[in-house]
């Protein structure tokens, strides 16, 4: 049920984005005669404070959200995984130094740090992504480092090392595959949090600049006209909520599917963990 709901909402938004592109909706077309107009035939979701189609801006806004979320998630994951792998694999002073830097970043609330960086870098899409990347890698680094510390001492890794496997090979062939599922789940949650962060920064005026559409900026504008055009803020708020909910539910579903500790049907099926273990044992024996 949850899976269906999550994928239906996500599918809806993806189709909506494609439809917006297909019908060439112009999110920046100003019509001063339609300012804050209610939904009608011309403007299916009404018009904003400059008479622009809320629907067109919503669809362009979700594109921006997806773009920011995907780029930031990929960059932060790469950065965090590399740092975590180095720290966990080499241990000792390298680990200490890298984890101290990580702890410094963790000591600040992520969004506050992102606001600070966005304020220093200045508003704009590129700077917004940089700000989010600077602060977003920490959770991946922590997670990867913890897992690598444990995987480093696994027999199959030690066996490969004894057989003369190089460090990159050890990491890429023997450690990273076992991290993949956890990282995928983490990335899913990260998508949702990056989307919220992007909306928050744009809400504060530190994100995408006018006239580009962004859900955060639309929310900010909508709040100003809550008394005279409540449909504006409601449409944007509900859209953001639905998308975040869908991604979070999707993340939950993936976690249940990929979590190595999840057992189904009381042992009738082998857990993924045990399958991986068997594979690893097999590899190690060869």
């Amino acid at each position, binding site marked *: 049920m949850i899976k269906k709901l999550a994928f239906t909402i996500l599918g809806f938004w993806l189709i909506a984005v494609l439809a917006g592109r297909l019908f060439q909706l112009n999110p*920046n077309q*100003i019509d*001063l*005669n339609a*300012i*804050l107009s209610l939904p009608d035939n011309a403007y299916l979701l009404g018009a904003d*404070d*400059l008479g622009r189609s809320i629907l067109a801006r919503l669809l362009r806004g979700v594109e921006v959200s997806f773009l920011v979320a995907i780029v930031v998630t990929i960059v932060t994951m790469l950065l965090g995984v590399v740092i975590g792998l180095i720290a966990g694999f080499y241990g000792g002073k390298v680990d200490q130094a890298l984890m101290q830097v990580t702890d410094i970043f963790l000591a600040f609330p992520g969004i506050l740090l992102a606001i600070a960086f966005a*304020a220093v870098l*200045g*508003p704009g899409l590129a700077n917004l992504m940089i700000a989010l990347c600077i602060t977003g890698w920490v959770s991946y680094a922590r997670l990867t480092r913890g897992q690598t510390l444990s995987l480093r001492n696994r027999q199959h890794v030690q066996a490969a090392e004894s057989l003369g496997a190089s460090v990159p090979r050890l990491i890429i062939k023997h450690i990273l595959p076992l991290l993949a599922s956890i990282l995928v789940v983490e990335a899913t949650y990260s998508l949702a949090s990056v989307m919220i962060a992007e909306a928050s920064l744009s809400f504060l*005026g530190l994100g995408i*600049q*006018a*006239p580009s559409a962004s859900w955060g900026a639309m929310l*900010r*504008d909508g*709040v*100003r*006209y*809550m*008394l*005279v*055009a409540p449909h504006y803020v409601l449409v944007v708020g509900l859209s953001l909520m639905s998308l975040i909910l869908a991604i979070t539910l999707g993340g939950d579903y993936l976690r249940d599917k990929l979590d190595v500790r999840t057992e189904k049907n009381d042992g009738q099926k082998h857990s993924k963990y045990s399958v991986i273990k068997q594979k690893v044992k097999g590899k190690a024996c060869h």
Partner: protein
Amino acid sequence: MKVFNVFFAIGLAWLLLATSSCRRDGVSAQLSREIVFAIGQAPLNLDPRYATDAASERVNRLIYQSLVDFDSQSKPTPSLAGWRAISPTAFRFTLNKNRAPFHYPTKLRQAPLTANDVKATYDSIALLQDSPHAAEFDNVKNIIVTDDSTVVFQLKQPDSHFPAKLIIGILPAELIALHHDFSHAPVGSGPLKLLSWRNQLSLQRVSDGQTISLLEVKDPTVRVLKLLHGEVDLLQAELPPELVKYLQTKPEVTVKTNRGANFSYLGLNMQDPTLKNLKVRQAIAYAIDRDAIIQKVMVFNTRAASAILPPEHYTNQHSLPIYAYQPALAKQLLLEAGIKLPLKLVYKTSTDAQRVRFATIMQAQMQAAGIQLEIRSLDWGTFFADVKQGNFQLYGLTWVGIKTPEIYGKALGSQSVPPHGFNRGRYADAQLDQLLAEEDWPSATAHIHQQLPYIPLWYEGQFAAMRQEINNYSPKADGNWDDLATISRYAH
């Protein structure tokens, strides 16, 4: 006996509770008489020698009295004193006979304001290194008190407009000598005096004891909701026009409007190679549909502008035409100037939502004229620093409370580049300098209109929204709050 004691204790407790509730009722009854004015930005400094923000200056006009004020045509008129030029470099000011005393917290001093207070105030401004108004009085050579009611200002250089500068509130000489903190504990002789300043600024009208509180509510929607719920009695300006129209539909609220005199404009960097070209400036002026903006997204009584000073100003003898929206002409002018279209320009503005809204509309309008405007909305500090440093191509700002034609020299004179003045666009025009030196204001106005170092936009209309029971308050053209001196509430 025990039973009696119990009943006695209960009775005593009831009596105490009743008394305390009576006291609370008493307090609320007293508070209900106060008039609460919701403002978007609280005053920052109530020392008139330092105040520069609009809210502080508006409050200071009520707490202090100044020697000079302005009439409806912005001509300087006597306020606390009348004056006479006794030579090109000397002005004698004679204080009115019936002058109010300073608002001392005790009744130790009830003597009215004297010429010594005037001298002490202006002497102290000249001595203050960090007063933003100090430069205005560089030309003062000496201030001589001839008697309690007469003071003579001697100048280094002739300045026929000198009286118009004497609009700083007068402070008591003895407190100036004691280095009193007027910023937070103002003592003036105006119609209102300070009661307290904690979460809100509470003032009391001297004539009848009416309490008037200024409550800072930053969010416009919250301000409107507070007015509708009766938590505040009055608000003025700083609302989107849609909310003003919304308030007009509410029976419990009255909305009063007035034409405005504050000049909004586009500032241009005259050192920019593209913007140096007059045809490019004219193209920008023709690429903005002021009428559409005024009609659709501005409050009532907003007027398109053609000059810094409004048409009713005493220096404006001829009405200058408004630059009408002609995108085709604008495009043609750009081509004549040898510009490759689209012309890319960066427009800086603050993060204020209404300013960004104007910018976005202008961006769309300019597109039809072949101008591609990039909007950069910056926080106020960064934006204003950029403007002062000349780090811009185009910016949008408003001149608030401009009264004297000296603004032309300060804003556009060749010698007025910051920090010596407000010529932020670094405009240098010998012909204009000559006209300003001759004080030929109509010709200077026409020259500026033709040369376009500023692109004139509009004078934003003023409005105030108040509860039905509020009376004797109306918005003023420059947005001042002078009617707080007369505001009243109908008794139910």
